[in-house]
């Protein structure tokens, strides 16, 4: 048997027994968070000061920085993106997937695949789709400090997505809106490799600046966000003494409450106020690239579905771009019916995914070419070979 169900079952029973108590405790914390939101909704300036004190105490703190809007503000759905007869906007989306080098495999290689799609809602035209595949082999798998890490390959993928969008922009009529799945911020440097991260970060920022120069509305869409950025700000709001700020990492009075729950009051199709993102990356994303975000209810009246949308400052401060983005996201989400998610992002993902059969094909082609050219091809490890053995089969 693959699993000791007896042990798992016992644990599940224990979890079940504690469920009611945990829920009651969470309800109390949530109520506190809601009251804090109401109390601090109109005190943006005071909150900004507190966030700044928190940042001085811990530069890595991750929270929301209120701007001029009330914390509990909600903005209703703007007018449709493109009515008949109007110039349609251009929606571009890109997503990526990657094959990581596997030391147990016969061949060491990596592949970054970017799928992109261009759509002109309201035009009646068929969308255009693109795929860019980049195969990394031999020396390309190494940096100055060693083999490319999983994180470094993911960063390359993220940059490749945005580069593809930048490349596509001149071919389509303005206004252009680009979407990627996940935050705009480039993630990394959590497992070392800081030098590579900083190098990639510079490329990433350069691409963003070029998109800004082309007057593009850039956004990252985070579905089912798990962040507690605004909740964290409300925790910071309760701090006053230097000691409390010094121990800010231990101050989690609203633990368990998420922004997704906090903003569930947003009516269907509405968005929250725009917040600045306070994080360790704030020192990198400065000026017009400074990262901002808002929450949005892309669900329906009875079934709210909160998402987070990350945008750079040049979008956050442009009401026209903001409205364009708001309306376009709602329009895209509605295409998907009961499970709202931007259709164009799903399609970009669908285009980008490398299927198992395709991976096998690439490996076969590479192996054949190497053998034909007299190159060395190793065997896969015995461990991998054993794992790949077929399961038990029936003859009758």
């Amino acid at each position, binding site marked *: 048997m693959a699993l000791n169900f007896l042990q798992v079952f016992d644990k599940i029973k224990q979890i079940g027994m504690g469920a009611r108590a945990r829920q009651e405790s969470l309800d109390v914390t949530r109520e506190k968070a809601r009251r804090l939101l109401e109390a601090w909704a109109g005190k943006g300036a005071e909150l900004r000061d507190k966030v700044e004190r928190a940042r001085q105490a811990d530069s890595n703190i991750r929270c929301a920085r209120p701007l001029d809007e009330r914390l509990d503000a909600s903005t209703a759905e703007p007018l449709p993106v493109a009515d008949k007869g109007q110039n349609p906007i251009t929606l571009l989306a890109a997503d990526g997937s990657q094959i990581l080098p596997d030391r147990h495999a016969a061949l060491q290689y990596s592949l970054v695949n970017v799928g992109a799609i261009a759509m002109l809602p309201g035009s009646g035209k068929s969308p255009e789709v693109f795929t860019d595949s980049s195969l990394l082999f031999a020396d390309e798998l190494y940096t100055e400090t060693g083999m490319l890490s999983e994180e470094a390959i993911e960063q390359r993928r993220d940059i490749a997505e945005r580069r593809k969008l930048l490349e596509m922009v001149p071919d389509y009529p303005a206004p252009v809106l680009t979407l990627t799945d996940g935050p705009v911020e480039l993630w990394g440097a959590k497992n070392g490799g800081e030098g590579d991260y900083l190098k990639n970060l510079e490329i990433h920022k350069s691409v963003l600046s070029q998109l800004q120069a082309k007057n593009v509305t850039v956004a990252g869409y985070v579905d089912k966000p798990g962040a507690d950025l605004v909740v964290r700000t409300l925790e910071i709001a309760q701090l006053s003494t230097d000691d409390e700020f010094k121990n800010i990492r231990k101050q989690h009075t609203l633990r368990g409450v998420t922004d997704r729950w906090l903003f569930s009051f947003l009516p269907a199709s509405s968005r929250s106020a725009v917040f600045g993102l306070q994080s360790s990356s704030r020192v990198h994303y400065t000026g017009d690239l400074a990262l901002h975000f808002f929450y949005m209810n892309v669900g329906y009246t009875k079934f709210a579905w909160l998402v987070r949308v990350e945008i750079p400052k040049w979008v956050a401060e442009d009401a026209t771009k903001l409205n364009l983005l708001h309306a376009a996201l709602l329009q895209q989400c509605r295409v998907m019916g009961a499970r709202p998610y931007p259709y164009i992002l799903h399609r970009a993902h*669908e285009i980008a995914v490398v299927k198992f059969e395709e991976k096998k094909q690439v490996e076969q082609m590479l192996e054949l070419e190497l053998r034909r050219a007299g190159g060395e091809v190793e065997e896969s490890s015995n461990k991998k070979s054993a794992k790949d053995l077929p399961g038990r089969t029936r003859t009758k």
Partner: protein
Amino acid sequence: MTNSIQIGHLLRAGTAGFVAGCSVSQLEAPALGALVRAPLDKDYCVYGLITDIHIDDDGLVRQLVTAGNISPEVMHDNRERRIVPVEMSVLAVGYEQGGKISHLLPPRPPLSLDVIYLCSDSELTHFTEAGHFGYFRHILQAKELPIGEVLAAHILDVKGKTKNESWVEAATRELITLLRDDYPMLMSVLGALGDIKA
């Protein structure tokens, strides 16, 4: 062999029939009962009748239909850009070798990715007027098919393209002869043929 319209490529095949695939945007040409051919080499091609056209769904399509208003862009995207092949089941009804038509089953089937063409009017005449309706028996033996509907669609296709009324009458008489011992099938086929004339 001129003016043939390419309607797809072969997916899988046997001597009794084959399945061809095409994209949704190529779907305008093929129709139930239409005669198609798969040229294997210069002197040999297999003929078949389209007996079914089906389009498989997938998870995204299922979700999209629940959304109600589907925009033209989304519709185009799903029909032209996504990999949703239309599959056509084709019943082998004969072959041509060295310029001679035979209504026997083909000696060997077409191969994967062979191009499938819709027969032109002259090819349709060439095939249907060869021999004496020998290919009807392949259709009548395919019990899993809606035989009456396929035959009616085929005869209607021939009638429309060749304008040969005497061929239609002769074909109907031949079917009555072939089905004289199978009254329920005869009634089914005649019922479908009756709808052509109505």
